[in-house]
Structures are given as structure tokens and as C-alpha cells.
């Protein structure tokens, strides 16, 4: 069983939902990446989505755009990010790591080289934001062969025909983007998410995570009630941006607030 499947299965037995933080690797600086990953696990992360910086993050709002720019100022490359996953794996063999980014750095490295390097480093899954299923078959084949999960996004406007396509190609879990727009935008309508998720579940047995617009413990708890996983990105990156010197401590403390809210404690 893959690390991602094992994680969801363990959580299910415990009656808990997955907490998936996202941050951009190399933000605020390259040395922070691995300590931040460990801090997030200490704060209650079940899976880490590790952002690969790109010069043109078309689907991201200003918070994640800035984080990408900070990382790129340090010259962070996809190879660096894969290297940090290997470093993280030396002391954490349980927490799945999903690389999340845009197509061009992956195409530039080449699918085969990328898949082999990511697998060897100990990565578990890949989200390529600008590869919809129509363009992703060759990537999925390559990642399948390497034993890596290809995670796809779903949106409020995904049609049933495409849901079927995504359900057939998706591995590990599906990522439901709960808002129209870019990352870090507006607020989330929990009832609407609940309706959409039950519809999505009629097409797939994969766990479904929800992201975009989750900014506090209370919302995270209500989303956790109706989904399998809660993804928090922009709000976490804001913590890192606000106090780069204390990024790991701030990230850990912020995430543990979300974790306790999700597990039924007081809302952060």
C-alpha cells in the first residue's frame, strides 16, 4: 500500500480527517524547507503538499505568488526541492509528501528523469496544476510506472463527463478546489461544498480533500465534517511571510490550532 493510501486508511480507522498543509519550498529561504516540513508534522500535518516555485504561477493569488518569487530569488529549482524531500525522509518515513507545481519545470527536467528522482527521494504524489486530465495521460503513465500518485484538481464547474475522466486517471486522492478564482481568494460556502462532495463521491472511491478559502479552525472543522482532508495553503504561507525568522515555530503553532479544531477541540 502506498504511503498516501496507508495514511487515509489509518485516519479512517481513527475516525479522523487528514490535514494537508501547503507551502512553497525554499520560502523564506532554502535552509528553512526541511525544518518547516518537520514542524508541520509536529503541528499535526498528515500529508505535506510541497510547492515547487515557478516564475508564472497563473492559478495562484498574491500570497502564493510572492512566496514563489521569494524562493526563486534564492534560485530554488525542482532538483533542489526533490533533494529536500530526500533530506526530510532521513528522519520521517511515514508522512506522505506530494509535490505541487506547474508543468514547465517538470517538462524541462523530462518526465522520466523527474519520476525516477522524485521516487528515489521518497516523494509520494504529484499535482501539476496546469495539466488537466486531457493533457495528462503520458504523465500519469510515467508516474504510475514509478509508483507515484498523480493527484488531480476538481472545481465547482467540473462536469460529470470530466469527473469520470478524473476519477479514472486520479491516484491517491482528489483535490476539490472549493472556489472559483485563485488561491487565497474569498471565503468558502460549506453547505455548497457538502453537496458537491456527495456528488463527486458517486463517481469515485478515492478520498476527496478540499482546499482554497479555508482560513481558520472553525471552517477547517466544518469542512473536515464533510470531506476526507482539509488543505491549507495561503493562510499558512501568510504566517511564514509575516515572520520569516520564526517560520517553523509560527507554522507549527498555527497548524496545531487547526488540528485541534478539526479533532473536535476548540476552534483556533
Amino acid at each position, binding site marked *: 500500500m502506498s504511503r498516501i493510501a496507508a495514511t487515509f486508511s489509518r485516519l479512517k480507522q481513527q475516525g479522523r480527517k487528514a490535514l494537508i498543509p501547503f507551502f512553497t519550498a525554499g520560502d523564506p529561504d532554502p535552509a528553512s524547507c526541511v525544518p518547516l516540513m518537520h514542524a508541520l508534522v509536529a503541528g499535526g500535518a498528515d500529508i505535506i503538499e510541497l510547492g515547487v516555485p515557478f516564475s508564472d504561477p497563473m492559478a495562484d493569488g498574491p500570497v502564493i505568488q510572492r512566496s514563489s518569487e521569494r524562493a526563486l530569488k534564492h534560485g530554488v529549482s525542482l532538483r533542489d526541492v526533490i533533494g529536500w524531500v530526500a533530506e526530510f525522509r532521513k528522519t520521517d518515513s511515514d508522512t506522505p509528501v506530494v509535490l505541487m507545481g506547474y508543468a514547465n519545470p517538470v*517538462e524541462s527536467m523530462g518526465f522520466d528523469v523527474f519520476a525516477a528522482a522524485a521516487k528515489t527521494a521518497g516523494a509520494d504524489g504529484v499535482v501539476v496544476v496546469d495539466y488537466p486530465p486531457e493533457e495528462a495521460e503520458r504523465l500519469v503513465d510515467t508516474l504510475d510506472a514509478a509508483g507515484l500518485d498523480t493527484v488531480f*484538481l476538481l472545481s465547482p464547474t467540473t462536469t460529470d463527463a470530466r469527473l469520470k475522466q478524473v476519477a479514472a486517471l486520479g491516484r491517491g486522492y482528489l483535490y476539490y478546489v472549493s472556489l472559483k478564482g*485563485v488561491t487565497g481568494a474569498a471565503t468558502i460556502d460549506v453547505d455548497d461544498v457538502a453537496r458537491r462532495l456527495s456528488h463527486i463521491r458517486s463517481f469515485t472511491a478515492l478520498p476527496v480533500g478540499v482546499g482554497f478559502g479555508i482560513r481558520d479552525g472553525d471552517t477547517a472543522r466544518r469542512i473536515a465534517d464533510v470531506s476526507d482532508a482539509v488543505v491549507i495553503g495561503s493562510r499558512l504561507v501568510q504566517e511564514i511571510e509575516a515572520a520569516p525568522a520564526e517560520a517553523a515555530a509560527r507554522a507549527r503553532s498555527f497548524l496545531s490550532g487547526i488540528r485541534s479544531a478539526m479533532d473536535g477541540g476548540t476552534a483556533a
Partner: protein
Amino acid sequence: MRVYDLPDAKGHFGPYGGVFVSETLISALEDLKEAYARFKDDPAFLAEFAYELKHYVGRPSPVYHARRWSEHFGGAQVYLKREDLNHTGAHKINNVIGQALLARHLGKPRVIAETGAGQHGVATATIAARYGMECVVYMGSEDVKRQAQNVYRMKLLGATVVPVESGSKTLKDALNEAMRDWVTNVENTFYIIGTVAGPHPYPMMVRDFQSVIGKEAREQMPEMTGRQPDAVLACVGGGSNAIGIFHPYINDESVRLIGVEAAGHGLETGQHSATLCAGRAGVLHGNRTYLLQDDNGQIIETHSISAGLDYPGVGPEHAWLKDSGRAEYVAVTDDEALEAFHKLCRLEGIIPALESSHALAYAAKIAPRMRKDQILLVNLSGRGDKDMHTVAEKSGIKF
């Protein structure tokens, strides 16, 4: 004769083109694809488009025999397709009218656009005023500083100009920001892309609207010269004026197609915008095409004296035309383009845009080596009024 019918149903030109966007944009693109398929052969829509091109833009644009310039070379005869005479001063308006008409038919009251030098922004602001639409133009904050006059023109026409502070603060970042606006406001907003880039169906749709240039030329050249030209030349940034004049000639293999990119300070300096001459394939702005990128797949900053060519990507159909060998792509430097600019001013009384001056400069390179009965057709895609400041500065003159 082979029949050229790309793109395929998924928007692919061979390995290029396609739809490389986040899931959140897919349904908007599906709706656009469906709407364009409905209207593109609709006689009423086409009649409306033709009416606007004739009475508002002033089409057909003439073809002009540049006699003195040709005599100066002592070789091929050079003809110019005068897109510079269009309303707003360039070919950009052809495409904007087509997309704005689609927006009207789809009931979208708000249009948005990205712009680099400001020409596409001005064309969009113009049509938005003409049709009574709200208009927001995204422009890199660096370009806002460099192109103050065009920013003012857009504001005069009633548009809101939003400076973009992310990334390199230039055209590519303006395009990213316009996409972000579109995905957020898709219910009431139509995104008018200014070139043959972006996700399918944009490269096809913009090409179709711009191909009026080549269709007219195919009728005009035999009337003037008794035959089609030996070669058609056009400058290539994103590539919309070039595709516009190339496309109706693709099946006619006796006509050479030559795209001219911006070599800036020289290809060897790395400071250029010659994507097809010096780039490699990748994915940006929703399509796979040639890109100027570093070893890690990050998009790099480009340079050209002509802001309209200063773009790190290029339309996917050009990538295909290059690989298939049907079109040739070359590059000329800032200095070569400026020399052609001044020559055309002095010998023909025409002030060309710096973009178009790149195509003129390559014509100036090859014409002297050709026979006097051979014919070159250059797409004079825009006029140079907007470039007075840049050219004067190069000559050490301050206004």
C-alpha cells in the same frame, strides 16, 4: 496539394497548443469553444464582423508598392500590406472586434485584456467604448511607466488600467493577472487575448479573426502584380499579425513564409526575444510552445527595442510551422530594425512601428540578393507614432 486544417479538436498543432490550465478555467474555455463554434460560420455574425471591419476599421487595408525603397535595393520589388492605416494604428483591432462581438452575443458586459506596449489595450478600450462595455486592462507596472501615453489613451477611452506588480512586471505577468481575473469573474467577463497564444480555442480564434489580412492580400497581389509574392514576411512576437497574413498562404507552397523575431542586442548576448530561433519547447500561458527559459524551466526576461515583440513565448501554430518546415524564422537586432525604420521614413514617407520594422529589416537583407522580377510582401502591422519617444531617445533627443 496537402490541405492544412490544424488545430485538431483538442487544439493541438502537432505537439504544440492544447489546453494547459488549472481545472478552475476549464469550463470557461469549454463555453468559449462552444460559443465560437456556433458563431464562426454564422452568416449574421460574419456579416456583422465584415461591416465593422469595413466601416469602423477602414478595411480592406491597401497593398502598397514601395518603389523607391525597392530601387534602393536594386533587387526584389517590395510590397507593403498597410495594416498601419487601420483605426487605432495596427492590426490588433481586427481580432478585438471579433472577440468583442462574441462577448456581446454571449451577454458579457465586461471585457478584460492584457497589454505590453499598450496597443492591444488601446484597441480593446476602443471597442469597449464603441460597444458600451466595461473594460479593464492589465499592464505590467514597468510597462505602465514606459508607455505613459498609451495608458492615458486607454483612460481617455474609459478603460481602467491595472498595474501588475508581480514577477517581472511586464506583459507575461499582465497575462497571468488577466487570467486570474477571468477565472474569478467568468460569469460577466470575456477575456480578449491579444495574440495567438493562450489555451485553445484562443490561438485558433485569434488566427481566424486576423486571417482577414492574408485573405485580402491573396486577392490584392494578383490585381497589382499579376501573381502571388515569392515570399511573405511578418514580425513575430506572440505572432498574431504573422499568422494573420501567413495562414491563407499555408497551402500555397510556392510562397515562402518568413517570420522575423527580435534579436535585441544580438542572440549571443542572451538579451533578445527570439523565442523560435533560440528557445525550446515548454508550457506557458495555457499552451505548449517554444519558450525562452532557463535550465530549470523558469521563464526568463526578454529584451527588444520593440515592446510588442518583448514576450518569452510564441503562438503554438508558429512552433508547428517551424518544426514542419513550412515557415522559416529568423531574427534581426534592435539596430537593424532601427535602420529599416529610418529608411522607410525617408524613402517612402511611412513611419512604421518598431515591431513591423523587424520584418522590414529582414526584407532589406534579402531583397538586394533577389532578381528584379521577384516580389516580397511585408506585413506592415502597425504605424510608428507610438514609438517616437523610443526612437528619439536612441538618437539622443529628449522631448
